[in-house]
């Protein structure tokens, strides 16, 4: 495709996403729609004025890396907040992620302490390849966090149901206000799950 063709294509995709973000009912998720709207707006702006991409290419190396890291950390935060909002992720697991992204954001905004750290450790500034691998690892680990949350919820649901059934069963057998039930003898501490932390 010609450069003009790409511009028309990007503008079309951007406009479609913008429409979806602004008017679509995407499970009535407000923050997702904002995110889609920002991406769409960027696409439309790039399509309308491709000189932005050229200007970006002329920026110093460090500035570009810092931009990318900043954008990644903000995206991680948005995704985390949205996942909690949809009850797909528990705050317990999100705190680590948000902490990490705040750390990266601090590195992107203020380089002084990073320079001092890299000088102290004798290492170069992170290369863009490491950053890309890092992003993938973030995605994989994030998925794990969501899975853990879901499994925890299933486990809790099972435990509640089991306890309700057990009580019903015992009451049918011996009536509600007896002092001792036969199940007591068989319910010592066996393979109980220890509480988290």
């Amino acid at each position: 495709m010609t450069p003009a063709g790409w511009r028309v294509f990007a503008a079309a995709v951007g406009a479609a996403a913008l429409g979806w973000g602004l008017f679509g009912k995407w499970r009535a998720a407000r923050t997702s729609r904002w995110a889609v709207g920002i991406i769409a707006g960027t696409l439309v702006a790039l399509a309308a004025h491709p000189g932005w991409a050229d200007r970006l290419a002329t920026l110093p190396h460090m500035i570009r890396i810092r931009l990318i890291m900043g954008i990644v950390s903000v995206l991680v935060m948005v995704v985390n907040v949205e996942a909690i909002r949809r009850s797909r992720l528990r705050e317990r697991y999100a705190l680590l992620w948000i902490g990490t992204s705040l750390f990266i954001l601090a590195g992107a905004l203020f380089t002084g302490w990073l320079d001092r750290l890299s000088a102290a450790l004798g290492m170069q500034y992170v290369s863009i390849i490491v950053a890309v691998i890092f992003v993938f690892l973030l995605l994989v680990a994030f998925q794990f966090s969501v899975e853990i949350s879901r499994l925890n919820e299933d486990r809790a649901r099972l435990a509640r149901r089991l306890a309700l059934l057990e009580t019903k069963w015992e009451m049918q057998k011996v009536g509600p206000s007896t002092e001792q039930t036969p199940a007591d003898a068989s319910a010592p501490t066996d393979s109980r799950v220890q509480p988290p932390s």
Partner: protein
Amino acid sequence: MSKSNPRIMVLIPAFNEAEGLADLVARARKSLPDTRVVVISDGSTDDTARVARSAGAVVLDLPCNLGVGGAVQAGFQYAIAEGFDLVVRMDGDGQHPPEEAPKLLEGWRATRADLVIGARFHDGSPFQGTPVRQAGIRALAVFLSVVCRTRISDPTSGFWLVSRPLLDCFAREYPVEYPEPEAIALLRRQGFTLAEVPVQFHPRRHGRSSINGWRAIYYGLKVGLALFIERLRPVDHRLSKTALLMKMAHSGNTTTGADAS
């Protein structure tokens, strides 16, 4: 709930509280006669379940530890399945004296609020502990008061009376860890009301607060994040007060208490 005499259940979540639980159950049965005392043993590894049973309580012995929120939610589901109208919830460590529970009931009769909170009234202030902790609880109280447009002086108290349509809401959706402040924000969002009644707390009988040191920092971060995100959530219309009231009117009392989601 047109009955003149609501059916009341006392709900006590307990994790390894065998010591002192028998006394607590007996006092609860004495100060709130004609109620069923239900102890949720949250995966306890000691004698909690057996002690509570022999003291005359109905026991839900959870096979694994769900956290306070998960345990309390099991109690709410039990209350609905058994057709109770009101649930009085108190801690298993004895810091909520059962003798004060009738005050919650009086508060409910006077206000008909969906949730009545027993606010700790100790030397005129509910805030105790280190200055940081006091400041944290005070900030929580101010934030929730603004959000709920009602004065909330003790947002971390778990000495509660929960009435029927709210019970259905909590049976389906309830926070897992440190649930009280989040639950207050949740009920506000779904259109329920709350009221506070001053009560006298006992100093903790055994053990110390589980929220100290690193836990306190985690508590602050977790509850802060949850309350921030709570502001971004839309109303869940299936769990709003009006929807649940209509459902109750249509179906009598056939809610199963099972997780519907």
